[in-house]
């Protein structure tokens, strides 16, 4: 029998078990994929509020002389334009333009916090450390950081009275440092669902107080725990990227439709700028598109995409969409096919599903600010 690594547990593992969650190994962590049902949990977030344990994600602290300017050279978006109390979303690229990870950068008064995908913690840390100048301190705080997300139109009602009042006035991608159920930490108006919501970063020793406090406060508003299954259908309806599926080290932000996160002109430049400038100078050879399927079968990761009987790409992400009540997906296709209305085929085994390219996001009625 080959040796297997025991998956790690987040600070909320016992709560997931007590709630009857189905647990799976995700990025080396035992994570709740669902508690009651994917569709029910998805709808709970769109209509009321859902509580997500996303503690498996990574958090790095970057501080010291020149830290901000250095970080700005590592990512494509403009860290230099961040105010204290503001965060941004950015890819981090290889010299060839491929994506190492997509991440968030938070500007705190005396440091930056970089939040990365769970599956890339070691890779991202090594990449950053490799490029770190003397004088800049890079510390992995992932094991000391619990992260919960409350997402849905009722989030503000759930949190009212339990967070500093000013937190409820925060705009999108703004954050404050304060207490929630006695736990001091970052309270940010960010999320991965397309709904209004907050992400709460705090020390794991407060796990029980915060989890039980949120569920008690949220009961009257319909707050329920929500698993990774619904998290994926929610984010896919918004056409948000999932690293490893929609973006990889072989796809560039321009191909993925993330050109808005690439600030070519920012002073100091960034790793990958030359390659991306070159790519921007000509029509893109391939682009990530969103498509809907007619029929009931869902497109799935790696299914071939066809046009005119030839394979032209493959599905990066696909699912049945609970909000749209139809199958949706994304995939890379040649630039010329990347127009709204283009007819495509998705090969599912021996059947070909009819698909049509649609604008992204798929879902446009979310409550996010």
């Amino acid at each position, binding site marked *: 029998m080959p040796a297997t690594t025991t998956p790690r547990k987040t600070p909320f593992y016992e709560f997931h078990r007590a709630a009857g969650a189905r647990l799976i190994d995700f990025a080396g962590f035992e994570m709740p994929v669902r508690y009651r049902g994917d569709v029910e949990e998805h709808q709970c977030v769109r209509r009321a509020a859902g509580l997500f344990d996303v503690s498996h994600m990574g958090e790095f602290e970057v501080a010291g002389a020149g830290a901000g300017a250095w970080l700005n050279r590592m990512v494509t978006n403009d860290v230099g334009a961040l105010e204290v109390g503001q965060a941004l979303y950015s890819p981090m690229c290889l010299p060839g333009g491929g994506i190492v990870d997509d991440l968030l950068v938070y500007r705190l008064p005396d440091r930056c916090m970089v939040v990365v995908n769970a599956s890339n913690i070691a890779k991202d840390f090594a990449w950053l450390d490799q490029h770190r100048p003397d004088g800049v301190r890079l510390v992995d705080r992932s094991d000391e950081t619990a992260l919960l997300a409350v997402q849905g139109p009722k989030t503000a009602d759930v949190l009212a009275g339990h967070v500093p009042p000013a937190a409820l006035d925060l705009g999108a991608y703004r954050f404050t440092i304060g207490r929630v159920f006695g736990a001091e930490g970052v309270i940010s108006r960010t999320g991965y669902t397309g709904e209004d919501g907050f992400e709460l970063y705090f020390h794991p020793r407060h796990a029980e107080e915060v989890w039980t406090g949120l569920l008690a406060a949220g009961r009257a508003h319909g707050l329920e725990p929500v698993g990774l299954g619904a998290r994926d*259908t929610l984010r896919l309806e918004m056409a948000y990227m999932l690293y490893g599926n929609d973006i990889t080290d072989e796809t560039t932000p321009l191909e993925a439709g993330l050109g808005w996160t690439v600030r070519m002109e920012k002073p100091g430049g960034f790793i990958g700028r030359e390659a991306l400038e070159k790519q921007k100078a000509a029509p893109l050879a391939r682009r990530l598109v969103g498509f809907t399927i007619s029929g009931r079968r869902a497109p799935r990761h790696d299914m071939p995409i066809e046009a005119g009987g030839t394979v032209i790409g493959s599905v990066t992400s696909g699912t049945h969409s609970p909000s749209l009540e139809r199958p949706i997906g994304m995939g890379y296709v040649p630039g010329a096919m990347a127009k709204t209305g283009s007819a495509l085929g998705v090969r599912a085994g021996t059947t070909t599903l009819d698909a049509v390219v649609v604008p992204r996001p798929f879902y446009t009625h979310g409550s996010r600010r």
Partner: protein
Amino acid sequence: MGFPEDVRYTSEHEWARLSGGLVTIGITSYASEQLGDIVYLELPEVGKKLEATKPFGVVEAVKTVSDLFAPVDGEVAEVNPALADNPALVNQQPFEGGWLIRVRPRNAADIERLLTSAAYQKLVEAQHA
């Protein structure tokens, strides 16, 4: 856990019940729980010939898709009409209202070769460990 004793099981998590010369086939509660919310089923037409252990259809859940494997050789006699509008019936009543197809078996005794409830329970426990 406890699975119904009046049916037989396959290692692919289908169940089969012989009644009145026809074999009713479905997927087990374990399968439907693993799959999550079922949104669509692709089932064969009446008259289609099935071969034991070969795929005969597809069950599509929100997050996953899975083939359905024929427990016995035979010919499709009925397809559950309730599932087109209500695929969730398979999650709600996997052994009763959520049956998938009824098959006229080539050999009614073939059902005896499938797993008993106790054997299936052991298989599930081993897989779940």
